[in-house]
């Protein structure tokens, strides 16, 4: 990895963000982009909402509805950042074929990837904000904050995002060594497994006991539970309700910093391995 000064690092971050934002947004007019940004998250959310409404008979005031809605809203970060960061490598390598140019510049690929990841974070935040506002305005989503909870929120929310970003970086590192199809399969498997196991759409008590043991090992489970406790007025027997809020925050923060450290070393090693094997600019087209 190239050693960089802080100033160089910030410049890389800024320009990576700029490139990423251009790619994400300039494929359409501002109006079309706005419609796309609105329709995609809302349709994903409405799918779950309609399923709920059909069975429950329209009771959006139920704590279970808020539980499901918030989990589904925040999971957008997991899918968007996880898959998005790996897609960066795929796009640079296969679609635009600029990875060789990136490798011969004096920037750090890790920093570049973080910059591109910030764009994903921004687009996901727009989706989450739209989803939450829609829920509050039209579906009577019961969100409430208190003075004490803001402090915890400022810690656990970014810590969780950092952990998710770190997993995204690790995936991106592995994607250097994978064909295009393989990356999408593995990325979707990971995000699909998290969707299924982390209590996104239902309390963990719905899962069989042996699956719940896996859920307890996943930091995203605790992150979602913490976010629900901090943002919702009501609660549900979720399967992790016995854990205290400080414990949830500690798990999220520790796991995120561990993931971040691991991601830096793993990404560096995988990047080096890809260059050694001569596959850094390989196009697979399948």
């Amino acid at each position, binding site marked *: 990895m190239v050693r960089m000064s802080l100033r160089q690092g910030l410049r890389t971050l800024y320009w990576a963000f700029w490139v990423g934002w251009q790619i994400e947004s300039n*494929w*359409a007019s501002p109006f*079309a982009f706005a419609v*796309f940004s609105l*329709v*995609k998250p809302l*349709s*994903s959310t*409405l*799918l*779950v909402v*309609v*399923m*709920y409404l*059909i*069975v*429950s008979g329209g009771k959006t005031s139920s704590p*279970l509805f808020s539980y*499901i809605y918030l989990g589904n809203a925040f999971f957008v970060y997991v899918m968007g950042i996880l898959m998005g960061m790996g897609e960066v490598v795929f796009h640079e390598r296969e*679609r*635009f074929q600029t990875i060789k140019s990136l490798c011969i510049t004096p920037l750090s690929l890790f920093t570049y990837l973080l910059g591109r990841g910030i764009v994903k974070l921004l687009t996901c935040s727009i989706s989450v904000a739209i989803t939450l506002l829609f829920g509050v305005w039209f579906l009577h989503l019961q969100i409430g904050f208190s003075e004490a909870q803001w402090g915890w929120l400022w810690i656990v929310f970014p810590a969780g995002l950092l952990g998710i970003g770190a997993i995204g970086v690790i995936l991106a590192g592995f994607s250097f060594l994978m064909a295009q*199809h*393989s990356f999408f*399969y*593995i990325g*979707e*498997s990971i995000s*699909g*497994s998290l*969707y*299924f196991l982390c209590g*996104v*759409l*239902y*309390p963990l008590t*719905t*899962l069989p006991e042996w699956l719940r043991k896996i859920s307890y090992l996943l930091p995203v489970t605790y992150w979602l539970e913490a976010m629900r406790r901090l943002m919702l007025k009501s609660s549900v027997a979720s399967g992790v309700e016995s854990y205290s809020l400080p414990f949830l925050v500690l798990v999220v923060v520790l796991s995120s910093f561990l993931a971040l450290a691991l991601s830096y070393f793993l990404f560096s090693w995988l990047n080096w391995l890809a260059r050694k094997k001569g596959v850094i600019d390989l196009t697979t*087209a399948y």
Partner: protein
Amino acid sequence: MEHERTVRQSQGIGTWHELREAFLLNLKAAWGRAYVRIVAQNRELSWVFFDVVLPLLAVAAYVFIYKALKAPEEYLGYVVLGGTMTSYWLNVLWSMASQFWWEKERGLLETFLVAPMSRVAILLGMAVGGIYSTTLRACATFFLGILLFHVKISFQWPFQVILVFLLTMFSLYGLGMIGASLFLLFGREAWNLLNLLQEPVYLLSGFYFPVKNLGFWIAFISSLIPATLGLDAARQLLFPQGRSGFLPVTVEESLLLFLGILFNFLAFKALHWMEIRGKKEGRLTLRWQ
């Protein structure tokens, strides 16, 4: 003799031999496109594994949400059926509708266009191959889903189920062929449009719930997507206890047949029109735009 041949050719009347040659050429082209999907896609066993398991993950999540909501039993079956249909819809989107766009991005579209076979033959081969390979995976997903989640299905009308399936594929892949024509003109927005056509279609077509719950008019407009009618008919046949039908099965079969004929006809017309337009506007070989 040569003069007569030239006159016949100028009037668009080929000899029997020429017609036979053209037919065989296009058949070989269709087989060539189908071959990749029938044989090559099964060579990488990890792809087979993921193509079966990935839809099951989404199915599992939605099954458990219905369990948490204590939904009637047949809803678990709706989810398994809907998860199976997502395989076909994603195949239509990513391997059919966007195929020419992928080729354009890789710089291979010119090769397709200068080759002497009909573009329709290419699309037909893609459709047939896509249906075959996706059906193998979708069946595995469907039967695994039934076993894992203890779903009870009815086998009272097996031939009608097969008929509904065939009509749905006929119309769905016809829609995919129209998409293949449209995407010839798209640039980078194609990728985002493909992503946009996933969740909204799952919602509007009632992949995981009876579409009649969306109201008559939304369900009626959504019926333009063949998956809507196909799923609704299949739900009525496989889970008759649910009484979940939007329209009677025979009406839906007729509509699917009509849509299939319409979409395939429009696909042939659209392909020709889009190609001419793309050549005039110089967009057929533009990459990364």
